[in-house]
């Protein structure tokens, strides 16, 4: 009984305790300006994390965002720097990211290759392309109309926070309330069962990879505009946090399955960790240590019941 309770709700409970600790440790943590900051900080993480989650829901994994995010940012900086209209530049970046997602998915699904390895290879290649196009230096974005997209506010709410709420609602509705979401989940639970139920798992997986590509494209756009430019290691810096968020997501709400609300909670948690550490001016060495501890303890709590050894299918 207690074990089931801990396995199912332990992580949520500990997360709430952590937020209580944050509020006690720093009185400004709950101030409206800090909450807005927190929402803006978690936007990119959530966007890319939801993309990864959608792929994981179908039973695959996609680490190519490490390359897509880097390449997308460079492309955006180049296009806006080349006097393209902002809207067209952003659409091009999101479109290319979708095509990249589609191609990665096609290779994995059509040739029946392990998604982990193929997406890592894709990440290498995309990062190399990024280097070839961007030359390995920071490309700045100075166009004010583009930058105003992330710096503007409605009342006190910054645009990225508005977008974040919109994105979570739309993808949440899509995954949890529509027929398509149920089909994606069915594919992930069992490809064979989904096939015999009359679904086409191949198409559903392709769909997941493409949607993920779109989200990576949106994520990289927000990231590049917030940083006012394309950094050389923008993609690699996002690699581990996004994985953390998606894997943390598996430990809450629907334990053991990747799920959207878990991912959003994970992104909120990672963003609050970094936020609270800068608020209380903790030594920077503690940030990664605590992040690692949080991840391990969350997963240990939810793995407590079975304690079986998990293996990776290469």
């Amino acid at each position: 009984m207690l074990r089931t309770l801990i396995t199912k709700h332990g992580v949520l409970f500990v997360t709430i305790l952590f937020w209580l600790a944050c509020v006690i440790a720093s009185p400004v943590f709950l101030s409206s300006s800090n909450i807005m900051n927190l929402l803006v900080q978690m936007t990119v993480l959530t966007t890319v994390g939801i993309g990864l989650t959608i792929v994981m829901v179908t039973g695959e994994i996609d680490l190519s965002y490490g390359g897509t995010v880097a390449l997308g940012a460079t492309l955006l900086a180049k296009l806006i720097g080349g006097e393209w209209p902002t809207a067209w530049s952003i659409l091009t970046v999101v479109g290319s990211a979708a095509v990249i997602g589609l191609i990665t998915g096609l290779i994995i699904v059509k040739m029946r290759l392990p998604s982990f390895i193929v997406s890592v290879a894709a990440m290498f290649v995309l990062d190399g392309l990024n280097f070839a196009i961007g030359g390995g230096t920071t490309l700045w974005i100075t166009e004010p109309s583009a930058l105003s997209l992330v710096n503007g506010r409605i009342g006190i709410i910054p645009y990225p926070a508005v977008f974040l709420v919109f994105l979570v609602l739309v993808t949440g509705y899509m995954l949890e309330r529509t027929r398509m979401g149920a089909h994606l989940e069915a594919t992930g639970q069992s490809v064979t069962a989904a096939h015999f139920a009359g679904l086409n798992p191949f198409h559903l997986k392709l769909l997941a990879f493409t949607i993920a590509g779109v989200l990576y494209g949106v994520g990289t756009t927000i990231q590049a505009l917030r940083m006012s430019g394309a950094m050389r290691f923008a993609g690699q810096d996002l690699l581990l946090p996004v994985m953390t968020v998606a894997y943390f997501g598996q430990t809450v709400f629907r334990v053991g399955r990747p799920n959207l609300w878990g991912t959003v909670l994970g992104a909120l948690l990672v963003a609050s960790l970094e936020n609270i550490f800068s608020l209380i001016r903790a030594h920077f060495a503690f940030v990664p240590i605590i992040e690692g501890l949080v991840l391990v303890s969350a997963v240990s709590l939810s793995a407590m019941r079975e304690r079986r050894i998990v293996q990776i299918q290469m």
Partner: protein
Amino acid sequence: MNQPLSPSRPVRIAGINVSRKIVSFPIRYGFLLTFVLVIGVLVAVAPGFLSPMNLAGNVLAEASILVTISLGMTAVMLGGGVDLSVGAVAGISGMTMALLVSKAGWGILAASLVGIACGTVAGVISGVLVGYVGISPFIATLAAIFWIRGSQYVIAATGGMQGAGTSIYLSNLTGYLQQVVLGLPTSAWIVLITVGLAHLSLEKTQSGRQLRFVGMNIFAALYSGLSVRRLTMYSYVVSGVLSSLAGVLLVIRQGYVMMGTGESYLLNAFAVPIIGMAAFGQLSVFGTTLAAFFVVFIVNGLSILGMDISFMNVLTGVLLFISVVLAGIRRRIQGD
């Protein structure tokens, strides 16, 4: 998998029917032929590729690092896991070694042993988390990257390094790997000894064979009465030892250490065993070793020809992709 080979039945590759005989030759010997071909081309095209200075100073020194760290990854992959923390482990052991040598005045051998001990502890922790607690290797070793990075900051701060951008220089060590002992440079001895020991411990001992069995079918291994948890843990400890050895070698080779040193080796350490697997049909110590040399030869040759080092990643990505396609085709020819 259990069906007998049927050479007459064609195999479908990307929707096209291809005769099995035509496919199986390049799959069997393709890697070795390519390996010889690449070396031949590099000898012909890249000036000074075969010079002893290049071979001992660059190729062998670089290979000793890549072989060691990839063998660590191979050990874990044999047991059906993956270790994302190999690069971070290399970093922390290298930094411990460098600080002991430069700030505490220790001898290099003693300092290296302490560095390797650090990496072993990291391996034990990941092994316990995967084998006994039951966390996915992805998550356990991903978390390991974080806490190792944090511990590295602490070690660096206690050692007197200010800020994240500073580095410690150990310029008097850089010649160490090129020193000739008994007719061969030290790096060659390190490669020989590491590969030999890894071969013995992973392919020739009972534990090594049992580990491979665990990787092939964990339930069968469990029902055969093997201590699956202990074997899984063993593989992560081997990985910890080998990747920290690689970290020590890396610091000796490049002569300095800073925050994040070694982390870039993760993706190569991941790619090399898979290239080796595609070449020989299964994970093996020799396959990994050959694949590591293959990558080092190509990178070295291309950098002699003036290619930018950053394209190394693209190259590894393409090699990884070709390998995984080949492994998929091979699986389909043998089984299907």
